[in-house]
């Protein structure tokens, strides 16, 4: 399973012109999210040390199916109050489309069927929330690296912006976006992804806290810098005082 995904990572990386670019993404300096003051310093320290520890791109620990939690909490939006979303939900998301745009050679819109036809990855992982709870769930989806490779990610792309139906948005550098376990999940615990967990498609970013794994995906955009988005802090939750980098 991990071999296939590693191949996807290489596929994604080769579409970028080699692994050199991956390495250079360890810097978030130029065009990256900014945060001033002492909290900015400590967040950068944690980020830098963790990127060093993770420099060989290890996978997070995966569990056997019998470890899956009976209770997997759902927080924040659990059923988006959006007219278009409700209509789409009624017809099984058959009209749902995920646009992939920005710095890609072939901007495209993928349907749920398109994503399901792509190489799939299933991973049973520990989800940890900044509130302190944790639960084990099984996620099935297509690696984001594969989708970006299909769309032809351009070499100048350095960040991926993801927006959701319920108005959340977050950004990821390619170090995380192209990791084999970063997937667009349409399945959970062997079934379809439940509404409360972000149907039809949610993101899984396994090496960070749950708030980076956005639910109800609406669009994907490749950019070269994120400092012009919103307040320049890199995500919606950063503007509420949380860290952009949530590996801690």
């Amino acid at each position, binding site marked *: 399973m991990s071999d296939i995904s590693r191949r996807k990572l290489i596929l994604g990386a080769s579409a970028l012109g080699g692994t050199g670019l991956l390495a250079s993404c360890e810097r978030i300096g130029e065009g990256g999210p900014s945060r001033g003051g*002492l*909290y900015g*310093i*400590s*967040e950068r*320290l*944690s980020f830098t040390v*963790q990127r060093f*520890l*993770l420099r060989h791109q*290890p*996978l*997070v*620990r995966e569990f056997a199916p019998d*470890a899956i*939690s009976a*209770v997997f*909490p759902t927080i924040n939006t659990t059923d988006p109050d959006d007219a278009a979303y409700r209509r789409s939900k009624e017809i099984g998301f058959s009209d749902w489309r995920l646009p992939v745009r920005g710095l890609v050679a072939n901007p495209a819109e993928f349907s749920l069927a398109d994503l399901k036809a792509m190489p799939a990855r299933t991973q049973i992982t*520990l989800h*940890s929330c*900044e*509130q*302190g*709870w*944790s*639960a*084990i769930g099984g996620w099935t989806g297509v690696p984001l690296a594969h989708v970006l490779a299909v769309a032809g990610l351009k070499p100048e792309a350095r960040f991926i912006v993801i927006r959701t139906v319920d108005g959340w948005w977050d950004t990821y550098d390619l170090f995380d976006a192209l990791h084999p376990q970063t997937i667009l999940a349409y399945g959970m615990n062997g079934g379809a992804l439940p509404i409360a967990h972000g149907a039809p498609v949610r993101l899984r970013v*396994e*090496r*960070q*806290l749950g708030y980076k794994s956005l639910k109800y995906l609406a669009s994907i955009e490749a950019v070269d810098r994120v400092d012009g988005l919103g307040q320049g802090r890199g995500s919606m939750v950063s503007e*509420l*005082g*949380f*860290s952009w980098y*949530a*590996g*801690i």
Partner: protein
Amino acid sequence: MTGREDGRIRHPAWVRATHWINAAAFVALAVSGTAILLALPRLFWGETGALDAPAWIALPLPVNLEQTGWGRNIHFLAAWIFVLNGLLYLAWSLATRHLSRRLLPDADQVRPAHIAGTVREHLHLRGPGPTQTRYNVLQKLAYLAVVLVLSPLMLLTGLTMSPGVTTAIPELFDLFGGRQSARTLHFLCASLLVAFLAVHVWQVLANGPAALMRGMTIGRRAPAAEPARRHEREAKR
């Protein structure tokens, strides 16, 4: 109970500096840690746990989900200060042999009769007497436990709650039995450190706080202790 202000334990500048930096970081960690804890005042063993999952201990605290933002910001800033300052202290302690000379119990202090005597003195709330020129054995063991056991455990259990660090070092899960086990141990060790702080502050207040505070701030002894110092100088000649 006047023993320490006559005593000859003096604190070099680096001990005083790291002591107060650590004190500030610890208070910030304890306050912000409590703020984070309020989002889930329940403790679990193993990898998983949640508000509506069976808990090992349900702490009698109100659930408050709104305090984690500032709580986490302060916690990780203070944690960096705590860790870097602690490493500096440890390196300096080893290099200057402060740890072995000041904090390791002396040979006579580890005899069962001596330990029993010191325990008895403490149970009777009696000070060690005016001739003390070193930390008593219980004090030394408490300091060593804080420096070499509880503080490293706080750091390691804290890191076991980090999804990034545990991806790089999954052995941390095996060491502590899972993310929630680590969280529980983090809380228990923090409780012991707070208990240590309470006793530490009480001992200062009970043993001549003015002189002890002077000793840990400007590093000089109280004027009342002058005779002892003169005696010390004469003894050195």
